[in-house]
């Protein structure tokens, strides 16, 4: 189980980073969301995986580590705030700059055939 879990964390990280390296803001937001899943799973796993061991007293034989859970819980909520902030920033950037490229301008492309104007205002 641990191997599978680790594989999933690695895959989510890879997907998140690939998307975070894209040039358009929305892809970056999606990438960061994927990355925050990976981070949360990773942090959670630092308390080790346990089945049927919720950290609620007198409900089970053994308890999973509650500390990483508490940390991840707030991380999820803060992660939402961060995603929201980034996405609104992306909208604002598009509104003010007329395109949704992370650099604020669409860079010159050597092969201009595929380029398409991002700002449709």
């Amino acid at each position, binding site marked *: 189980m*641990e*191997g*599978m*879990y*680790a*594989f*999933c*964390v*690695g*895959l*989510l*990280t*890879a*997907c998140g*980073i*690939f998307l975070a*390296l*894209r*040039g*358009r803001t*929305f*892809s970056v*937001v*999606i990438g960061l*969301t994927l990355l925050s*899943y990976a981070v*949360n*799973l990773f942090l*959670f796993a630092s*308390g*080790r*995986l346990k*089945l049927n061991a919720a*950290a*609620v*007293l007198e409900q*089970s034989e053994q308890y*999973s*580590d*509650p*500390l990483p859970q*508490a940390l991840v*819980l*707030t991380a999820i*909520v*803060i992660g*939402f*705030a961060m*995603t*929201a*902030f980034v*996405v*609104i920033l992306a909208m*604002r950037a598009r*509104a*003010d700059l007329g395109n949704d490229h992370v*650099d604020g301008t669409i860079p010159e492309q050597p092969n201009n055939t*595929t*380029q398409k104007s991002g700002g*449709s205002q």
Partner: protein
Amino acid sequence: MNSLIWLPFLPLLGTLIPLITARFSRTACAFMTAALPALTLFLVLSHAGEIFQGERFQAVVPWIPAIGLELAFRLDGLALLFAILILGIGLLVILYARYYLSAKDSIGKFYAYLILFMFAMLGVVLSDNLIQLWFFWELTSISSFLLISFWGHKTEARKGARMALTVTGAGGLALLAGLLILGNTVGSFSLQDVLDSGELIKASANYPVIVVLVLLGAFTKSAQFPFHFWLPNAMAAPTPVSAYLHSATMVKAGIFLMARFYPALADTNLWFLIVSLTGLITFLVGAYIALFQHDLKGLLANSTISHLGLITLLLGMGTDLAAVAAIFHIINHAIFKASLFMAAGIIDHESGSRDMRQLNGLWKYMPYTATLAMVASASMAGVPLMNGFLSKEMFFTETLHQASLGSLSWFIPVLATLGGVFAVAYSTRFIHDVFFNGEPINLPKTPHEPPRYMRVPVEILVALCLVVGIFPSLVVGDLLLAAANATLNGPAPAYSLAIWHGFNFPLLMSVIALIGGLFMYYNRSHLFKFQAQFPTSDPKLVFEGIVQSLVVKAQRVITLTENGSLQRYVFFTLGFAVVMTASSLMKLNTTAGQRPEIPVDALSITCAVLLCISALATVIWHRRRVVALLTLSVVGLIVSLAFAQFSAPDLALTQLSVEVVTVILLILALFFLPQKTPKESSPRRVVRDLSLASLIGGVIGTISYALMTRPLDTISTFFTENSKTGGGGTNVVNVILVDFRGFDTLGEITVLGIAALGIYKLIAKMRLFMPSTDDNGLPWSEDRHPILLTVISQSLLPLALLVSAYIFLRGHNMPGGGFIAGLITSVAIIQQYIAHGVEWIKTRIKLDYQIMIGSGIGIATLSGLGSWVFGHTFLSSWFDYFYLPVIGKFELASAMIFDLGVFLTVVGATMLILANLGQLTTSERPIQKEHD
């Protein structure tokens, strides 16, 4: 002796006084500014008697004892001499500047800088610790920069200040390196320890490095060749600054450094070679250039360079008597040069020019000032009965006793005499060219005598020139002896301070210098013609050229690495991170640890496969944004399932509800963003990014596998054991959030609130057009609020709120709590927005989300503060059990109030974000100026 600590800090306090008193009259400001330096001088002088007896005062204030940091000061003969010079001449400069500065100049600012500089200089000479000494040393560079650039509207002031700062700052860095090596070699940064370990240092392999680095610091500060060029350019400073910094203090700091470390570093061939040769060259070059200056201050600046070279040469000779002569010349040069600078300032002030080609025959207009200047120049030239003569005589004597250059040793006295000739020549020029030699040419104003009190500082200094020159041992004998003893870290050799030593070689050298100098000045036209053949090179231009070419080179490097592409920066950052992580992972021998793995079941495999497929699908379809969003939400869903599977019900609930709000948020955002991403990454970039992403994914996967398969040594046992007894709850996660780590949570909801308010402000000024069709050109659906959704959601609202209340209340003991309940409530309200629209909601739900965030954080904070009332620490919780008829036993905990604050903040923040964003899509959007 605790008053010692106060010595340097009294002037520091004094920096405030001119700033405060500048609003009063200039005279009042000057007097009040002078009060603290005068008090400091009094305190210093009150210790003089004991120091003359051979005592040495030291004081230490521990600062950070754990790492050996302390404030350490010492007052010995050398420090006493310099402190008197700094404070005494400083006081005279304060008086002088009162009359020199015009009404346009901010006198408060000037005095504040001046006193700051005074503080820094005092710190340098009184420090008893190497690092502390260096700190004050740098402070002198910075404060002198402020003083030189005081007339910041003038280009040459800015350039001169920058040049001085660059040269002395670079030297300061070399000095720091030298002092660090020195301290490590000795094993102590205490000055006394260093001075006492001269043998150890000279035997050490680090010695050459230390000497070179420390001397670099001293030479740059004291304008020694080849670093001398900054000093003439610093003459753009107001003249009181030149009189203070460039005669008595700042440039003497380098000399002080050499004298201070004399017992530790001097007396080797290396020291002799570097110091004496540098001094000799500087002595000659400065004297030669001084003769050809047309600017009064330029002449004085180059003469200062020359005299500093003379002192350096003396310190490099390696004999104790030479060191005594050096100390004596420090005193004499400070006195006559400060008065000459002040006289030059008076001439400039009262005639409007400093150009010696214009200034002629001023004797008629200002005979009194002329007399003072003549006495001071005579001292500079080394005329008998002046103080300058005495130390120059000692200098000549010492050059005769040099044998360090072997059979070539006779070079030194000959070259010294040559320097003396130049000195007489330029001193003569200062007198004759300015006060005689015909009539003034085209002066901006008619020259006249300065105000009475502007002359007073010059009078005092010139009187000192004479008194020291005639009664040397009576006036400065004790001070010189004490300073010489301190410099040598032992008793000084016997010497005599008499004017008349009989007919001997030094006297002959003086005579040759005097006659030769007068002769040279008389025939100066030939020399000037000779000099005119050389192309003039302005060191300022050369320096600026070097700086500019450095800037160009730096710019080139910057454009190589920084092209403004965020993608590239992220790539490099991640690449660096993965290299650092991977290299330490290689030290781990096995990936798998000792901990047994949980067996895999079919359901988990299914979920894992689904997760992987959805994650990959998100990447593959990321250009079709709505599709990517859908696959992304599948990932989120499975993540929450994973939390549920691995015994984290709280996390699962949170993740689930956050997932809902996130997807709603992203869909709303997508309304205003392009629906599709253009294909613009080149195949090379895709391959590059894919490789890096896979590499990082692999590294992170390995770390998590290695982590999970190793046994856990957790600190959480404390939490599980005390959760019920200490926090009154059985849900340990919730107890940690609201009790054990409540302060963290308070910080987190504050961040949440700030983020929401930031978003609110970002949205408020957003100028976005509303797309009337989707990307395929299809119009939006006419049915904005489907009736089915409206009806169901309306009936769901009470149910959802009830669930949320239940989740909230049970949170302390069972999975749930403020975070989750807040998110559920938000989802319920958002549903109403979606189903009914903003217009409908506005009339029914009158909640101000900003106030909600504020009250949430307020309640949480107050519940923490409440424990203070009962004498407990911040955020410690209280709980008890009560019995009520019908309901039975129930628990009340103060943590619940805290959780209520969390709840309110979460609801407020989420709704503030989503409701405002959603409002943009409707006609209720905030009214803005038309945007084309």
